């Protein structure tokens, strides 16, 4: 029993004894490890080889490698076979072997931090990617410098460990650049008469963050200011279009003598213009739409029912004609009759109906009709307009909108007491 225990212990000791194989046919001369931004390495290992030997064994620094090329001292390519831990090279009397290969086995990544780890029998030249910042070294290098902007280290033989990141972000510089960009962008938009209060506020916040050394947050806030400015401009453009449409409708009503209800339409239009001037573009857009709606509901004073229907028909035709004319005029030259509201370059929204119907192939017929209606109306309409257009009860309209919302085809925006149904941006070209 005791003998068995001794045997087991001895066998165990044998297993933990390191396995080392002789490498006396070659003497390492130099090693160069060039590290690339993707963590791959180009290894150039030079060994002195016994010229009396036909084949020599060479240990490599990784188990996996690619692009292996071995040449002798005259640059003649040599063959090799893989053995455990390295290669048997057909040296055929070579005095020197230059072994070049690529491998990703020598590096590991921890977040942005790269670690190079290898055990070298000779002093090793480690070349890091351009701009790399060293964070740790396993030993004091014997040389340190730059080759074409890339940092190099001559590390003594033994365990080689280099920890680095590809480049430290220039936080102050980046944050300042972002703020400058945002400032320039916002100023250029303001020169086009846009009012960008919210974007300005964010820009101020970004500057304050820099003052408190919060550079990453400052950069992020500066870019957010640019996004906000873009959003505001989009809303402003949309509002300008609605105001132009409302003006056209009001002018049409005036020309037709439909004075009943006209003052309310004009008042609402003026409110829209006022909102626009102060930079409340969303409110301006809503008010303009209401003004258009009110202008359409105007009537001639004391006219009968028959005349009323006739009048409405004429009014609709006139509004349609006016809208067409206005669009045509806008395409040709700027309208001098709208000095107080700047109408930015307007591009009519095109709804991608095909995309909607392909993605949502199980849509009901009435849903499809409403979507087509929205598409014809620049991608949006008030819930009341939908109800009126399709002569639907309020509850049915509400269910239809809810259905389209759940399918993420439309979104609903509350404008005053009204509900504006808009095709979502995904389907707008």
């Amino acid at each position, binding site marked *: 029993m005791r003998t068995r225990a001794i045997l087991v212990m001895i066998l165990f000791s044998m297993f933990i004894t390191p396995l*080392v194989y002789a490498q006396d046919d070659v003497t390492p001369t130099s090693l160069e490890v060039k590290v690339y*931004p993707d963590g791959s*390495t180009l290894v150039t290992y030079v060994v002195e080889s016994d010229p009396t030997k*036909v084949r020599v064994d060479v240990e490599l620094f990784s188990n996996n490698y690619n692009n292996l*090329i071995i040449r002798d001292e005259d640059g003649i390519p040599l*063959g090799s076979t893989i053995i455990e831990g390295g290669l048997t090279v057909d040296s055929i009397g070579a*005095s020197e072997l230059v072994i070049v290969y690529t491998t990703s086995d020598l590096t590991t990544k921890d977040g942005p931090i790269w670690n190079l780890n290898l055990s070298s029998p000779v002093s090793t030249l480690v070349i890091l990617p351009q701009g790399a910042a060293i964070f740790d070294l396993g*030993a*004091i290098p014997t040389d340190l410098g730059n080759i074409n902007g890339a940092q190099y280290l001559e590390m003594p033989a033994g365990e080689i460990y280099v920890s680095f990141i590809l480049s430290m972000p220039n936080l102050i510089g980046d944050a300042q650049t972002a703020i400058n960009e945002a400032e320039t962008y916002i100023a250029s938009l303001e020169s086009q008469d846009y009012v960008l209060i919210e974007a300005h506020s964010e820009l101020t916040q970004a500057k304050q963050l820099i003052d408190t050394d919060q550079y990453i947050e400052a950069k992020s806030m500066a870019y957010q200011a640019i996004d906000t400015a873009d959003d505001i401009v989009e809303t402003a453009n949309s509002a300008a279009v609605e105001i132009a449409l409302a003006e056209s409708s009001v002018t049409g009503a005036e020309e037709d003598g439909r004075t009943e209800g006209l003052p309310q339409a004009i008042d609402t239009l003026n409110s829209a213009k006022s909102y626009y001037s102060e930079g409340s573009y969303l409110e301006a857009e809503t008010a303009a739409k209401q003004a258009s709606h009110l202008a359409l509901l105007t009537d001639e004073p004391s006219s009968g029912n028959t005349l009323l229907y006739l009048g409405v028909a004429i009014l609709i035709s006139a509004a349609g004609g006016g809208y067409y004319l206005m669009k045509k005029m806008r395409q040709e030259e700027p309208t001098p009759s709208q000095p107080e509201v700047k109408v930015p370059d307007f591009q009519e929204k095109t709804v991608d109906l095909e995309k909607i119907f392909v993605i949502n192939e199980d849509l009901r017929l009435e849903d499809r009709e409403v979507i087509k209606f929205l598409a014809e109306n620049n991608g949006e309409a008030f819930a009341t307009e939908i109800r009126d257009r399709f002569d639907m009860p309020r509850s049915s309209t509400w269910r239809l909108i809810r259905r389209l919302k759940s399918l993420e085809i439309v979104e609903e925006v509350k404008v005053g007491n009204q509900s504006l149904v808009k095709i979502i941006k995904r389907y707008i070209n």
Partner: protein
Amino acid sequence: MNVKIIPFTLILMLFLSPAALLVNAQDNETEPSPGINGTIPVPTLDGNTTLPETNSTSTDVNGTDTDGEPVDPIILALIREQAQNRMHEMSQLLGEGTESPDFANGLMEAKQSMEQAMNFETSNPSAAANQYLQAMRQYRNLLRKYLNDNPGALNEFEEESIVNGTATDDVNGTVTETEISEAQTRLVNEFEERFRNQVTSMMQNVADLSDDMGPQDAFKAQQALTKAEQKLLRIQERIAGGQYDGVLDDLENATETLSDDFDETDPGTAQMLKTMNKLEAKIKKMEQKTNKGESTPEDDALLEQLRGNKDHTKNDFKENKGKGNSGNNGKPDKEKKEKKDKKDKDK
């Protein structure tokens, strides 16, 4: 009885296993072999052990350099520059007046390491260098913690890191199997010719040194060379007939057998024969180059040097004949010399 023999054998094997290490150490006595990724923990100033993947040269908390390796002042200055860069970058990243106590303490500790390093610069440059590395490690740990707490900040690093390049881009060309095969045929021809000349020269060398080698070793050496010559003749015939299959194996067998046969002689003689054989191989290679008109003035100088080394080896052997020279250093083995002297006295 058998049960006792087995443990004994195993113990013997255990004792012998370090011999493999000794063999490996022949080329680089103080250098470890590649392929073993080891880690040594490094103590920090606060006494904690951090960064398990690092293995710096050690410095105690008082800054006493335990390695004593001198550090070039220029290198020290460059390491200082690296550490200072990290200090500025991390202060910028975390904010000089960071409100987080962890980061504030971390920055302060790293700064203390920097200050300690500066203090050591004149008195103990090595300790200073290690202390700068320690500070860099502390900054790296802070960076890790910061990224852990602020995963969004990782984008900043990723954005900065968009630099292209992979190792494959810099690989100079490719070598096809055909190219290797063609080169191999040429090399085999040249090697066979060289080896033949080398054996002939070795025969002459053995003849020159036969008196010093003693009749038995001289005979063994001559026999080994004759055997190699015969093998080479057969290989030559095959090469002449264009039969290259297996020629490389036969050549390897011939060279290895010659080396093994040399080992049959006295260790000192065997060592001398192998050294001579290696020198002859190098000489024949250089001569081959010269004959082809491919040698440079440096090659000619090297050839002269090799010939000189050969003569030196011969002379050393002659001077120390019978005294043993297992270290191949031209000096007789001390122990053997003493034993020989004792033997002579006894006589």
